[in-house]
């Protein structure tokens, strides 16, 4: 029961962040799933299944209120889909620690840049 309550709380946080910041919910969902006893690879893959319906709902709300140019959406969606297929195939093969370090550095730099 306590595990389920943790999942509920983690889910609420995942959804709130993903809606407010238009992404990043998966990075909260992964550790929440891992804490519920899931292995790292399973948690990374399953987090995508968790985030998909959330992005569908948030995406519809954004589409309604925010003017999103099709001339930008088309290339980003095409590029992201191609990258996503590659990333999904790479997941079982890459050094997760190496990728995570590099990406953490990038996030820190981008985060600081966006503050100012």
């Amino acid at each position: 029961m306590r595990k389920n309550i943790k999942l509920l709380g983690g889910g609420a946080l995942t959804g709130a962040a993903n809606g407010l910041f238009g992404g990043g919910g998966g990075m909260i969902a992964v550790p929440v799933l891992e804490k519920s006893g899931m292995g790292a690879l399973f948690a990374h893959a399953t987090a995508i299944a968790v985030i998909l319906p959330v992005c569908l709902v948030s995406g519809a709300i954004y589409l309604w209120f925010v003017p999103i140019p099709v001339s930008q959406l088309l290339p980003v969606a095409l590029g992201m889909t191609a990258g996503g297929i590659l990333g999904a195939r790479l997941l079982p093969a890459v050094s997760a620690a190496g990728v995570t370090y590099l990406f953490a550095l990038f996030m820190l730099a981008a985060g600081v840049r966006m503050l100012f």
Partner: protein
Amino acid sequence: MAFILFAVCGFLGGILGGMGMGGGTALIPLLTIFCGVQQNVAQGLNLLSFLPMSLFALTVHAKNGLLVKDKIWWIVLPALVFSVLGSLCAAFLPARALRSGFGVFLIVLSFTRFAAARKMQLKKQRSD
């Protein structure tokens, strides 16, 4: 030219997204810093681009037997409810404030990722 730049940003975000490592947290700053896209537009672009990408990525993960369905609704249902609230806030916040908030969110996430990477490294060293 702009088409290619946007596609490259999408591709880079997609690689991380397909691994379940936060593609959006890469794509959104790439779009705002290098393409001059407004914060809330970049966020909307990420949410919508994620939809086709995740369908393909999920097919790959399902084939590899990596998807766990057990208890998934405990996390999906509250996430859906709170994502509506979050999205409405984002739609009405000024882009400038949203950008700073996103910066803080990234910095916090980066610390959790550094910790996660350290843990993975230690675990690997022990198993080697």
